[in-house]
């Protein structure tokens, strides 16, 4: 075998490997789409639906449709969800966007102090932030419950079963992001801010007018990462949000899969309709995210 043939064989091998791998990886997506279009509520198991029906999609979008109750007589009834499941997707977007914006504000300001200012216990605080954040959020549920129950007695819209309450709790998860932003700030030389100070700008002005505009990429990364992690957050949301019109996507999607009756069709339609936009946005922002990942964020 010549050297050229050797390389060619390797290329064919690499393509074959990648294509086989991709088929394995992507088949689940095809099956979910097929399950969402299939009549009846079957677990995803076919590449192509045998009998195409848009009923599940209609259900998720909150459009009423006719369902055959008795095949012998052809009797039908109108099915319409009390809460259109796509509302959960919208709730998730609201909660995740607000929480991520809050996270950016809280971690951005704190990161500035850690990167640019000198104060006592600075490095100790930084390490403590990182170590304490390792405590899993799920196990804080008892305390979260106590806090929200208490808050709700005085401020109704901040209590249990409210989205602002859930957002408030999400705002605690800032330490990874403080580290990421601080790392980015440190790569920007302080000389520009220093010369602005000499020209009479206040510290706050140098932060807002000089450092922030230069750091937009890292804020984009933090926003995307925190947005994604809150879109997928299940346990806290499931305890805090009790009524179904408040649910987030994660809680709602899981509610279709009761132990007794698993509504795979409806779940699949919801997964497709809400998963596609998020995936597309993520892929569009891919470049940003990859840059940020190498500075140490773990998707949750």
């Amino acid at each position, binding site marked *: 075998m010549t050297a050229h043939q050797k390389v060619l064989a390797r*290329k064919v091998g*690499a393509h074959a490997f*990648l294509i086989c*791998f991709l088929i394995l*990886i*992507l088949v*689940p*997506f095809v*099956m979910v789409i097929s399950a969402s279009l299939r009549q009846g509520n079957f*677990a*995803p*198991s076919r590449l192509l639906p045998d009998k195409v029906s848009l009923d599940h999609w209609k259900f998720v979008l909150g459009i009423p449709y006719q369902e055959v109750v008795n095949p012998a007589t052809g009797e039908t009834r109108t099915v319409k969800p009390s809460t259109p499941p796509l509302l959960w997707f919208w709730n998730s977007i609201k909660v995740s966007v607000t929480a991520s914006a809050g996270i950016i504000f*809280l971690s951005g*300001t*704190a990161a500035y*102090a850690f990167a640019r*200012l000198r*104060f006592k216990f600075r490095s100790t*605080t930084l*390490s403590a932030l990182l*170590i*304490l954040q*390792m*405590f*899993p959020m*799920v*196990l*804080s*549920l*008892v*305390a*979260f419950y106590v806090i929200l129950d*208490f808050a709700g007695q*005085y*401020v109704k819209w901040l209590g249990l079963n409210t989205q602002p309450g859930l957002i408030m709790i999400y*705002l*605690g998860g*800032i330490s990874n992001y403080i580290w990421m932003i601080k790392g980015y700030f440190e790569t920007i030389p302080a000389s520009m801010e220093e010369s602005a100070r000499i020209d009479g700008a*206040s510290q*706050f002005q140098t*932060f807002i007018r000089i450092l922030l505009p230069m750091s937009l990429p890292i804020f984009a990364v933090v926003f995307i990462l925190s947005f994604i992690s809150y*879109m*997928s957050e*299940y*346990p806290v949301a499931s305890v805090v949000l009790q009524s179904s019109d408040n649910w987030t996507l*994660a809680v709602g999607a*899981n509610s279709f*899969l009761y132990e007794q009756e*698993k509504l795979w069709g409806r*779940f699949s339609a919801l*997964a497709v309709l*809400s998963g596609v936009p998020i*995936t597309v946005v*993520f892929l569009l922002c891919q470049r940003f995210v*990859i840059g940020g*990942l*190498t500075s*140490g964020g*773990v*998707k949750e």
Partner: protein
Amino acid sequence: MSLNGGFPIRQILVALVVLPALYLVFNIYQAGNSLIALAMLIVICLGAFIYLSDLGYTYRYLFPGLLGFGLFVIFPIVYMVFLSFTKYSSQNLLYFERSLALLRQETFPVGDATYKYKLYLEDDGTYILYLENEKDPTKRFVSEPFELKAGEQSKGDQEPGVLRALAPGEEVKGRPLEVAQVTREKLFIPMRGRQFALPGGTLVGMEGLQKFASRERLWTLNPDGSLTNKKDGAVIRPDFRLGFFVDKNGEKVGVGFRTFTGLDNYIRIVTDPRIQGPFFKIFLWTVGYSAMSVLLTFSVGMVLAVVLEWKDLRFRNTYRTLLILPYAVPAVLSILIFKGLFNQEFGAVNQFLRGIFGAAPEWETNPWGARTMILLVNLWLGYPYMMLICTGMLQSIPSTIYEASAIDGSNPLVDFFELTLPLLLPPLVPILISSFAFNFNNFNLIYLLTAGGPKMVGGGIAGETDLLVNYTFNIAFRDSGTNYGLASAIATVLFIIVGLLAWTNLKLTGRNVKI
């Protein structure tokens, strides 16, 4: 310091935040939570000081973040460590005072006087109770107006309502409700928990649905904290280790209360075979699962990254984008999708395997089947992250070293094991450790995919695939006898393990040195 010259914009902003906050503190104080009000007041003063005085300048940037962190990360940890030293479960739910008050409200019927009753609904929505002695209809009593919420169990902590004698011929105002009506409108539910005092001081309460009878409090409180039963003279005293009132035979009486028990919960983890057996089994699985997950995702991610780094390969970018897809889809959705695909009877995976081999693994009922499924799903979820990280690292390796080794007549495999891997591993160690720690606490995956199942034989609520964090969650929230104290103790142990991991990681990265 303000942005536009002399205008005190900062002071106004501070006032806009502080004033409503002070109003809130006032409300909380008025409601009787003076300690919490005090704590809030201190935080508000601190905040006002930081934002108004130049001395607090640095902390202006830190205050909001650290406040949020303190409230939603540090407070829960402190609270949990505190709970871990207490007995606090569904059987020991109330504070001691409430538990004592409940006992003190217990009454027993005395004498033989019984009363017919009527409820009068007043125009303003309040109620008046009317009583008439069954033997002597001239003895009639009427209460002050009081409020009732239909169908709602009364907490039983109100003071007894005052009854006054009704003069002969005097009528009660309002719309009378007969007994049947009271029953139908579910008013008897809150009524049952209420006591009324006759002019002489004798208490009366509902006896069944039809009538009222005079009753007396069952327990009298002795100076030493014990209680004496008026009917039979038995004495019970609180046992603060047990969290119950006990009689002289050690039998529990009344409702349990929360109590401080020191290290009991921790000792239980180590000694109680019902906890200890599952605990160590779950601990081993958690470690094994985390290690395997890191190893698998890293290997696959690394191989893909290396293959995609090959410059002459066509469609590299298309491959890369498609390979990232599992990372882009929200994990909750993908986990639930896999739950369907791996469905033992109807799922795609088993239909496919049955079609080819005629047999299929039991993903749901066999512990090792379930574990394999979890690792496969986690591989699918996790390899893109490792691939992205490795790609970033690979690009930082200068290509000249490969050229040098090519001259020596090397091949790709040798290159990989002798050049790439040794160069990549050291900077990747911190990422591998944090990935390990993340998987160690990957609650969602297990909870949504298997819910811990299949059940561990003889392990109580423990499941074969439960991670420590799921097991703790089950003890705290899903067990029929939810046990917050024990769950908190396990959570504390868990926190120490993961905290140590994070600390090691910090030391290894030397991030500290750079600060």
